[in-house]
């Protein structure tokens, strides 16, 4: 890190010793997993810098924004509309949930058989090691799966200003109406938090900003269709992960620069891995920083990940908001339209996800799909069987992996992944 942030972390109320331990584990993991990769695009230097400052410079920026009167809203889910937060002059950041922390403490609040992602969000709070969470003026929970919605009941008393957004579970007219009314309610709450009213102009501008970020990600995803893959799955995943934390304008600019570089690489037939490396698509549960376990296993076993059908990937960033509406009402409707299309496994039925996976496997020229399920994540694990069936109907091999954030099953997963790579080769 470029400077000493100890006093800032102390002011935020972090447990400095535990936080140092976390940063050291994170730093080592990043070195071992990311910096050891060969033939990375030069532009990844930006993300290396962002990761080295993920609890440093970026937090300082947030703290400075707060000092200037801006509010920070933390979120755990892609259903929380960044457009509305930005239009109300707030900054939206993703909250930490990708590593096990303070598990004994967590199990005082949550049953052992809760998914790793939910446990992690509690661990970062109880261990006092997430500066994003501690900077947040409001934390948005959302009623996605049963695990999350019940967990927010216990998280409420632990955090400052938890706001729970309800979400539909069925893609019906009533479901859409619920989403719209929840977005209206979120807009009011955001306005109350910041004291800034959302106007047609501010909302339109915010839509443009978030669309630009999504467009840059779409560009990245499309470039990964090429063979040889111009960027590793690990690096591309990092871009999707950092999109949750970074300043949106700077992120967009930096990612577009990488995309320019990738276009040149493709023209020169330069890849992160050689041509004909088996190409795999990952599908399933989101992978929050620093959950790089499965992609790391896959890419050190001789395959390359070419796409993520995940909330930290194409599912989370698919589709833009139509910003052509003439009134505030039009814009709110357009935002609702866009988010209502997210094919999260909490919806029933959820056929769009199956067709998207099959479509992605073909667009990305994937040789196979690995379905990634976090243990105890009922919605995605339930869908893993229909996903496998839908893929096999199209003769696309599928491997279902169920795991958590622990490292004790790495060897077993490696065997399965390697056998799957041998199978699709």
């Amino acid at each position: 890190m470029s400077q000493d942030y100890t006093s800032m972390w102390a002011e935020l109320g972090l447990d400095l010793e535990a936080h140092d331990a976390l940063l050291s584990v994170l730093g080592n993991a990043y070195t071992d997993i990311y910096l050891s990769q060969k033939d990375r695009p030069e532009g990844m230097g930006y993300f290396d810098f962002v990761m080295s400052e993920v609890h440093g410079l970026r937090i300082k920026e947030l703290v400075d924004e707060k000092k200037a009167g801006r509010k920070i809203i933390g979120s755990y889910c892609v259903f929380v509309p960044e457009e509305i937060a930005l239009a109300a002059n707030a900054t939206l950041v993703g909250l930490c949930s990708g590593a096990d922390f303070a598990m004994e403490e967590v199990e005082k609040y949550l049953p052992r058989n809760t998914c790793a992602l939910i446990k992690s969000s509690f661990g970062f709070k109880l261990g006092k090691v997430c500066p994003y969470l501690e900077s947040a003026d409001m934390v948005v929970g959302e009623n996605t799966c049963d695990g999350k919605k019940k967990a927010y009941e216990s998280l409420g008393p632990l955090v400052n200003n938890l706001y729970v957004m309800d979400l539909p579970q069925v893609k019906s007219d009533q479901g859409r109406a619920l989403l719209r009314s929840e977005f209206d309610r979120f807009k009011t709450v955001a306005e109350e938090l910041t004291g800034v009213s959302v106007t047609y102009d501010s909302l339109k501008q915010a839509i443009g900003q978030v669309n630009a970020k999504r467009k840059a990600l779409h560009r990245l995803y499309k470039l990964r269709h090429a063979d040889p893959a111009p960027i590793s799955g690990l690096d591309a995943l990092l871009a999707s992960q950092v999109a949750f934390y970074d300043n949106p304008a700077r992120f967009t600019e930096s990612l577009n620069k990488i995309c320019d570089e990738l276009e040149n690489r493709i023209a020169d037939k330069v890849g992160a891995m050689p041509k004909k490396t088996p190409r795999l698509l990952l599908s399933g549960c989101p992978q929050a920083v620093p959950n790089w376990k499965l992609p790391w296993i896959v890419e050190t076993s001789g395959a390359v990940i070419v796409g993520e059908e995940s909330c930290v990937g194409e599912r989370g960033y698919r589709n833009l908001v139509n910003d052509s509406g003439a009134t505030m009402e039009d814009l709110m409707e357009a935002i609702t339209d866009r988010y209502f299309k997210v094919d999260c496994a909490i919806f029933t039925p959820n056929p769009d996800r199956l067709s998207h996976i099959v479509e992605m496997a073909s667009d990305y020229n994937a040789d196979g799909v690995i379905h990634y399920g976090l243990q105890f994540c009922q919605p995605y694990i339930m869908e893993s069987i229909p996903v496998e069936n839908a893929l096999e109907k199209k003769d696309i091999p599928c491997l279902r992996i169920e795991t958590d954030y622990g490292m004790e099953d790495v060897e077993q997963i490696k065997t399965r992944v390697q056998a799957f790579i041998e199978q699709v080769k």
Partner: protein
Amino acid sequence: MRLGGIDIGSRSIELVVVDDGGQILDARQTDTGFDPICQAKGIMADAGFDKLMATGYGRGLFETAFDDTATVTEIKAHARGVVHYFPEARTILDIGGQDSKAIALTNTGRVKKFEMNDRCAAGTGKFLEIMARNLGFDLKDFGPQALAANTSHAINSMCTVFAESEVTSLIARGADRQAISRGLHDSVVKRAAGMINRVSRGGPIVFSGGVAKNPCIRKLVASRLDRQVLVPEDPQMIGALGAALILKDELPAMAE
């Protein structure tokens, strides 16, 4: 050329040497013990091979310990080894010491799909070994004894630790140990059948791995699934044989 395949399993290590026509020249076996590399060195000492391919859970360790060794997963190795004996095989059940797997093959003998139980000892050779000991049987007698039972005591726990307590309470109630043994075999087969059904629905099943030597498991798999069960000559050697044969298959490519 002498091509070696070594399978470092959780319970035993096998080494098979074939010539470039795929003829088996040598086959050996030893216990894995607590120092697999030392054990492997012992078995390899005078085997005289020109190239070696390692498989099994210890293959990574092996790759680090010895230069110039290729590795392959036990899934592909078993598939290749089985095809050597049964070219028509489309379904494989492999139950080893530490894991069990069901593999479906394409009509060219490639792996089409596989299922694996690898997170605990449930339904593996280790499970049977522990249970045989609890019931006072030698492992080699365990299958025949279970087969001789008139009835079966259902064992509901898949987990080795819980099944152990279940067995203890059955013994305490004076239950017949042959019937308990049969129940334990039933529980292993129930699990294996579930895996097989997920990868293939018909045709003969080739059974490999150490547990294939157990006559009760063989019979129960056949009757439960109503499918023929074929067992290669020395089912424990299949992984090592497959690894050696994969080297043989790669030969023309290397000559180019």
